[in-house]
């Protein structure tokens, strides 16, 4: 990546902005079923906060907080949550991803359980989208080497 030297104003403002962006991303994920948004959009906003870290600071600064091992693990974790909720529905005797049947194991009525199942799916989608976006960004900006290049 081309970076001539660090800039204090951008770094300080990004330090204020990044928690707000991540908070807003969680809001978008959690309110996906009755307002605009959802897992994919929230995951993209969450990934944008990590990309902002790389742009404002450094690749190593971001790797110290969100390492590549965790990133690759999270790609699989989101898919796993998605598939697990679907498979539990099959095991309880309904179709794949038919969340209404989950009221047999969760203490709520079927309508609330349906909203909860959607929330679980969207959390899984959000985690996977965030991790894949960050991984695509790292691969594109460092030509696949995943380390800091010369200026």
């Amino acid at each position, binding site marked *: 990546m081309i970076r001539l030297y660090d800039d204090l104003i*951008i770094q300080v403002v990004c330090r*204020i902005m990044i928690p*707000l962006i991540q908070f807003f991303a969680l809001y978008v994920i959690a309110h996906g079923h009755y307002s605009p948004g959802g897992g994919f959009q929230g995951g993209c906003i969450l990934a944008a906060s990590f990309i902002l870290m790389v742009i404002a600071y450094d690749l190593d600064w971001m790797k110290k907080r969100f390492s590549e091992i965790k990133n690759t693990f999270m790609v699989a974790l989101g898919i796993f949550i998605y598939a697990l909720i679907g498979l539990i529905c099959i095991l309880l005797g309904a179709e794949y991803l038919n969340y209404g049947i989950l009221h047999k194991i969760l203490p709520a009525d079927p309508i609330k359980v349906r909203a909860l199942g959607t929330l679980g799916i969207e959390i899984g989608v959000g985690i996977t989208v965030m991790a894949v976006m960050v991984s695509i960004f790292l691969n594109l900006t460092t030509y696949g080497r995943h380390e800091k290049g010369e200026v």
Partner: protein
Amino acid sequence: MILLEYFLNFVIIVLLFLGIFFFFTATLGLLRFPDFYCKLQATGKGDTLGAILILLGVVVYILKEDFSFATFLVTLKILFIIFFIFHANPTATHAITKAGLDSGIIPLTKEDLKK
């Protein structure tokens, strides 16, 4: 009471028109100013103030329609957006200006205009 409503309508209209005015001047500056840095200065300042004024007009409108806890939450979200724009927009302008300076764009001076 009806006087208060007239007054609030007046405030909303003034805020919205001021916001539109600042957006207009920012766009005019973007199109007509001669230099990279001049254009950035026009858009960076005008867009920030215009967006903040329009959002403040929206806040007053929502609170005028219905003053309750639900509208208070909506107001709080809009104030968060104002806070975000107030910080993010000048910083982005600063980043673009610095990138331009680093990559060797020379600012316009009085001597260039005389030529």
